[in-house]
């Protein structure tokens, strides 16, 4: 009887191998996807923009922006929209409401101190935590962004805070606010983070969707050019203000922003927390290394 079972198991295994050997199934070779070439070498620091758009000196220091540029429709893109970072609107806006909600949720989740510990903040010290996400988490066996960690750690407390939901982003915003002004500092020089950065870099150049655009088609090749009424900005220094309050929209995490990017470019979006979005998050966050966390920010 055990011999018969072994035969069946072997047959089934052989069948699976045969099917998986078909091209396009689980073929180890990548499908032929067009890339926007050349695949640039990116510096994992915000100053890398000096070799891309060259606008970095104009927005490096939020307190020394040239506001004459902000008032010019032809030139405001050169400030990389940093003029909308706080304290651009010191009156109350949607980001402030989210911040209050996030703080209340955080205090409730962390009553036992286990929530902070799960996020990687020993003794509840949240200062600087935002600047070190995304990170590789050995307990999860993968690289995760802060919002994915919040979802995971809230679930451990029996609470549902879906990645991308208002409450998840609100908690993320509260945690980010405790790193306000601290430079983003993720290390992509080795290990799983380096691998994620490289995958993200390749994804940034991978053509997709009905229009066959890659992110880099516009945000590398055509920075400063106009798409209809909007100027195309640099990918450097762009994640320091997330989750962001969108005046046309809602509280928006970076992964929800990537969904909006995808939809605008005619690309089927993915679920928040998907591996591809997390790789892009690692890539884009590395391109913001050295830029201070700036929340709660607004964008149109």
């Amino acid at each position, binding site marked *: 009887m055990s011999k018969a079972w072994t035969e069946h198991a072997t047959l*089934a295994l052989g069948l699976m191998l045969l099917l998986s050997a078909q091209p396009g199934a689980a073929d180890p070779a990548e499908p032929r996807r067009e890339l926007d070439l050349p695949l640039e070498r990116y510096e994992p620091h915000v100053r890398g923009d000096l070799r891309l758009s060259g606008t970095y000196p104009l927005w490096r220091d939020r307190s020394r922006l040239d506001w004459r540029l902000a008032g010019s429709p032809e030139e405001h893109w050169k400030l990389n929209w940093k003029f909308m970072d706080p304290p651009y609107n010191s009156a109350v806006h949607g980001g402030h409401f989210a911040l209050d*909600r996030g703080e209340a949720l955080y205090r409730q989740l962390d009553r036992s101190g286990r929530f902070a510990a799960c996020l990687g903040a020993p003794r509840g010290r949240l200062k600087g935590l935002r600047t070190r996400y995304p990170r590789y988490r050995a307990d999860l066996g993968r690289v995760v962004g802060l919002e994915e960690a919040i979802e995971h750690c809230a679930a451990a407390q029996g609470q549902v805070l879906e990645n991308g939901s*208002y409450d998840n982003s609100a908690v993320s915003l509260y945690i980010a606010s405790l790193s306000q002004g601290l430079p983003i500092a993720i290390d992509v020089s080795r290990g799983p983070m380096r691998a994620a950065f490289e995958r993200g870099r390749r994804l940034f150049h991978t053509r997709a969707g009905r229009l*066959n655009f890659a992110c880099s088609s516009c945000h590398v090749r*055509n920075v400063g050019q106009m798409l209809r009424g909007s100027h195309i900005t640099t990918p450097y220094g762009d994640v320091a203000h997330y989750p962001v309050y969108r005046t046309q929209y809602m509280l928006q995490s970076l992964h929800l922003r990537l969904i909006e990017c995808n939809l605008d470019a005619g690309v089927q*979006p*993915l679920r928040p927390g998907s591996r591809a979005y997390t790789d892009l998050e690692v890539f884009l966050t590395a391109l913001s290394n050295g830029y201070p966390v700036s929340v709660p920010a607004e964008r149109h």
Partner: protein
Amino acid sequence: MHLPLYGLLFAGLALCAWAGDWPADAAVDAHAPTRTLTPKVVVNSGRLAWEPYKRDLTPWPSLSHLDRRPTPPPQAAGFTPPLRGDVARGRAIALDPARGNCIACHVLPGEDWPGSLGHLLLGYRKRGHSDAYVYQQIYDRRLINPNTVMPPFGTFGLLTEQDIRDLTAYVQSLD
């Protein structure tokens, strides 16, 4: 005796093939009118809501690592004269965000709010390009420049043959 086991295995594999080409992590509801979903953030909620998006984007490759579909390769348009294009209709397609949307990237004479990253099309009629060349550029410019940003409107099925004939007539008429 073990037949049901194999039946189950085959049924599982068949289901995978039938469920569509999009990857498992795509924001898709197979039963929604356009399948593609867009997120809706609900204030003071721990759940993310999803709504049907205005357009089905599942047929084209996404950025998912699980997406095994290749980029559709460049195609020759196979243009046959005469052109039989309508300039006025071509202009309407060029300005329509849901169709050609040429204005998003190209400066077109007399039209407001043009983009600037595409080639200037001012005075195009004086450049002496053949209709077949212009038609191919709109149909699939990758055959002319493999690294072009311009979408392959013909190969990807975004515009019909007559749409591209009308656009060709319009572009060839530009002063």
